[in-house]
Each structure stands twice: as C-alpha cells, then as structure tokens.
C-alpha cells in the first residue's frame, strides 16, 4: 500500500473553496463507425469545450469503440417538450446563408437521442419547427443544436485505442471463463448460472 494511503490524515477545519460555479455542462455524442449517426453518450462537466473534448475521449471514448465524438454546451440546445402525441411542426425551405442546426431525435421516452440530419434556418423557433416537420414523425422529442457551437474530435484521431482492448471488455474473458467453469461444473449448472449475465454485452 502506498505511504499516502497508510498515513493518518489531518485536515483543516474548513474545506477548500468550491469551484463549481465556473464549470460548464457539456452533452456528448459518439459515432461508432464512419457514416453512422452520432448517438447520445452522456454529459460531463468541464471548464471549457476543449477540455470537455479531452475528457469525453477518455471517458465515453473508452467505454466502447468509436471513431468520432461531438460535444456541445447544453445551454446551446433547443428541444421540444417530450410528448406522447405527434409533435406539431411546420416545414420551411432551407436558407443556405442561415445557421446550420444539427437535428437529434428521441424515438421513445428513455431512449437516447440520435443524429438525424440538418436544417438551415435563421432562428431557433423556425429551425425547431422545420426539424420536427422533417424528422419528428413518430418521435417523442426533437433537439436542435447550432452546428457552429459543436466541437468535434479531429479527423483521423484515434479515440478507441488500436491495441488489444480485450482486457477491458466482457467478451475478452468469455471463452476463458467458460473453459474454466467447465472444469468445475456441469453444463446445465453453468447455463443456469449464466442466465443472470448481461447477455447483450458478451
């Protein structure tokens, strides 16, 4: 055990001052393969979007393989309310000189938001309405984010490292674990035991 962990700790009466108020909230999306839509991964706190990108690569980029990450400050997104009835929306033609908005939709409550496309319109109200009309059919929520407020990892940046990552994935152990169980237990007992595994990830 390290000496730090063995030591008796002594503390000042007061905690250090809080620094929470200057930390931003960023929304993170990951892209699993080239050409696939970006899918919501989670949120994180960071002082600015550059550092948020670094955090996102280390956190969400190491959960599972991905080729690109998008982020935006959560204050920059505009959403419809989550609705169980068809969302109202009116389409409008894109204006090539106007703001480009990336559109994400949530299919059912509890689902993650998935990239659907883009609308190009001057203000958020018109853009959200057009996004609903074009992408919102059968969805519970539509979200738009100005494209120029989003950060992206650099092209060709290696996020999911290319060396063998089997040590950090359940599937990296499945065969050896099964072979070892076979030496101890009957097949039917192993099958019964495995029913509580999270199968999707093995």
């Amino acid at each position, binding site marked *: *055990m*390290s000496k*730090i*962990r063995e030591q008796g*700790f002594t*503390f*000042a009466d007061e*905690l*250090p*001052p*809080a*620094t*929470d108020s*200057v*930390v931003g*909230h960023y929304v993170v999306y990951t892209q699993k393969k080239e050409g696939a839509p970006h899918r*919501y*991964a*989670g*949120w*994180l*706190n960071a*002082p600015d979007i550059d*550092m948020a990108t670094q955090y996102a690569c280390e*956190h969400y980029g*190491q*959960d*599972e393989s991905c080729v690109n990450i998008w982020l935006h400050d959560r204050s920059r997104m505009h959403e419809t*309310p*989550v609705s*169980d009835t068809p969302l109202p929306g009116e389409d409008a033609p894109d204006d090539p000189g106007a703001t480009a908005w990336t559109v994400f939709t949530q299919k*059912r*409550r*509890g*689902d*993650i938001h998935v990239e659907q496309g883009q609308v190009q319109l001057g203000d958020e109200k018109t853009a959200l309405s057009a996004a609903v009309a074009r992408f919102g059919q059968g969805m519970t*929520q539509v979200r738009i984010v100005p494209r120029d407020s989003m950060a992206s990892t650099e092209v060709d940046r290696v996020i999911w490292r290319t060396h063998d990552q089997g*040590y*950090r*994935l*359940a599937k*990296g*152990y*499945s065969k*050896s*674990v099964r072979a*070892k*169980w076979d*030496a*101890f*237990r009957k097949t039917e*007992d192993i099958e019964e*035991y495995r029913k*509580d*595994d*999270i199968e*999707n*990830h*093995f």
Partner: protein
Amino acid sequence: MSGAANPVMNIDPSLEDQDKLAEFEQRIADGVLIEPGDWMPDAYRIGMLKMAEHHANSEIIGALPEGEWITRAPSLRRKLALTAKVQDEVGHGQMLYRVSQDLGKPREEMLRDLITGKTKYHNCFNYPAPTWADIAMIQWLIDGAAIMNQKTLADGAFGPYVRTMHRINMEEAFHFKSGEDMVLTLMSGTKKQKAMTQEAFDRWWGPSIMFFGPHDKPNCEQLPPMKWRMKTESNDSLRQRFLNRFAPAALDLGLLIHVCEKDEEGMVTSKKVDEACVPDDTTGNWGVTDPDWDEFFRVIRGNGPCNAHRVALRRFSYEQGAWVRRAIASGTSSLPPAA
C-alpha cells in the same frame, strides 16, 4: 459497482397535488418513462436524487479499495484490467452526479457532503481488502450483486437514470467477467491460492448477503420507491436470486460457505459452516443464515472497519486536488498544498 442500495427515503405523497399525483402514478403504472421536463412529485424528485447521489458516492468510494491494488496486481493484463475498472467506476460516479445535478443538487455540494459525512455510500465498501483474492471477490460477488440490482434499476421509470444504468451495466459486465476469471484462476491454482481465496470469500460473503439491504416491509410494493418504479424488485427477492446463483457456484468451486465472526478491523476471528445454506426441497431456493443486521446498521452509522479511512482518503484527494480545480477554473495557478 454499487447498485444504488436503498438510501433511507422518508417519502410523504400526501403533500402533493393529488390530481397530478394520480395522473403521474397512472403513467408509471402504464410503463411510461419520466423525463426531466415532465411533472413529478417533489417526493419523487427528492427520492430519485437521494438514490442517484448515494449510487454516485458508492461508485467513487468503491474505487478506493480496488485502486490500492493497481500497483500490486499479479500480471500486466490484470493491472491493465484493474486500472480500466477503477477508471470505469469513477466515470460511473461522474455520470450519476450529472443525473443528480439535474434533479437539483450542485455537483460540488455532493462531493463536499460525501467527505463531511452528510451523505452516505454503500456499506460494503467499508470492509478491508487485504489480499489480491479480496479484489477477485469484490469483482465476482459485489459486482455480481450490483449487476443483479442494476439490471432491475435499468427497468425503472426515470429516463436519465435508466439511460445511465444501461451504459454502466455494459461496463459492469466486464468487471464481473474479469472477477469470475480471477476467482476461477485462483481456485484452479495452488493450495496457498485456494486458501487465500477461501479467506477472502469468508470476508466478502456476509457483506454480499447484506448488499441488497435489510428485509423489506410487508407492503413494500405499495410504498413509493416501488410503486413509482424508482426500484423494481424488493431487497429480499434480489437477495434470493443472488443466493440461488452464487451459493451453488461457490460450492462447486470448492469454497465453503461459513457464518463468520469478525473483529473491529473486519478480519474473521471464528467461523463455522452455514448449515442453513442448502436448497429448499420444495422451492429449490437456497437458504442462508440471516446476517448480523446490528453490524449492518453499525457500519451505516460510520462505525465499520474502514469508514473513517475511506472518507479521509476521499477528503485528502479533494483537498489535494483543490489547486488543480482552481487553476483550471480560473486560468491561474498556485502552488499545491504540502503533502
């Protein structure tokens, strides 16, 4: 890792708008997921906040006993895996603090409440891990229990928590398989390895049985935590499923299931085979000697073998990291405090 075990929730629905409450409860009964913009009873928001914060605290503190073993892992692959696992656990804590923030509590307030003892974390992390086999047992038994619990939490009703739980469970699957691999390797090894594994099993079996919390109240399914699908399975039901899965597996591995007495440092001082740990002839359900619930509540109150050390280490890290946070936040730097 933690599984969000049962923080105390004194919820009083009678204080809510009864019409809105009825509509809310109908939506829950219909299987509708609640999103942050939806109306929800204050008691639900507070209850979910307590649950998510307790879960986040448990992920952060839960990384500490395992983190101590990174430098002493027996091979490079085990070291890589343990480093990745500890990174995952801390990441889970961060994700769950984000869920909690949206329920109304600032992140730093949560970090500070944890180190001043205002909020709690899971009991099982207040026990010692003196050998590598303890790390194997934490990953097999505690992560195994956590997966059982968190699979049910992923069927809950609060959208952000459900989404986070799906992501966490994906990583928990790795933690559990890694733990299984370690236990199987140790039990396929030398006499010394097997003896070390038995000793670690003796230390962790009791906390695993207590993992799911105390016995349920008779009407638990009608009380808000389950009625509102904040949790979807009772403590006793989860405990029974855990027993049915792990008791026969442990015995098949050659481990003995003991009822143990422990000293103040959490080390076993005497043990006897648990005669109650056999399958019921009629139901097939495995039995177990009821754990020492006095010990459970003693540890909750902060008097477990490692409570003081775990919280002190977290506070030490928080204080040592203050200058880094300040420098990042303000763009100015200052010297770190003396170690």
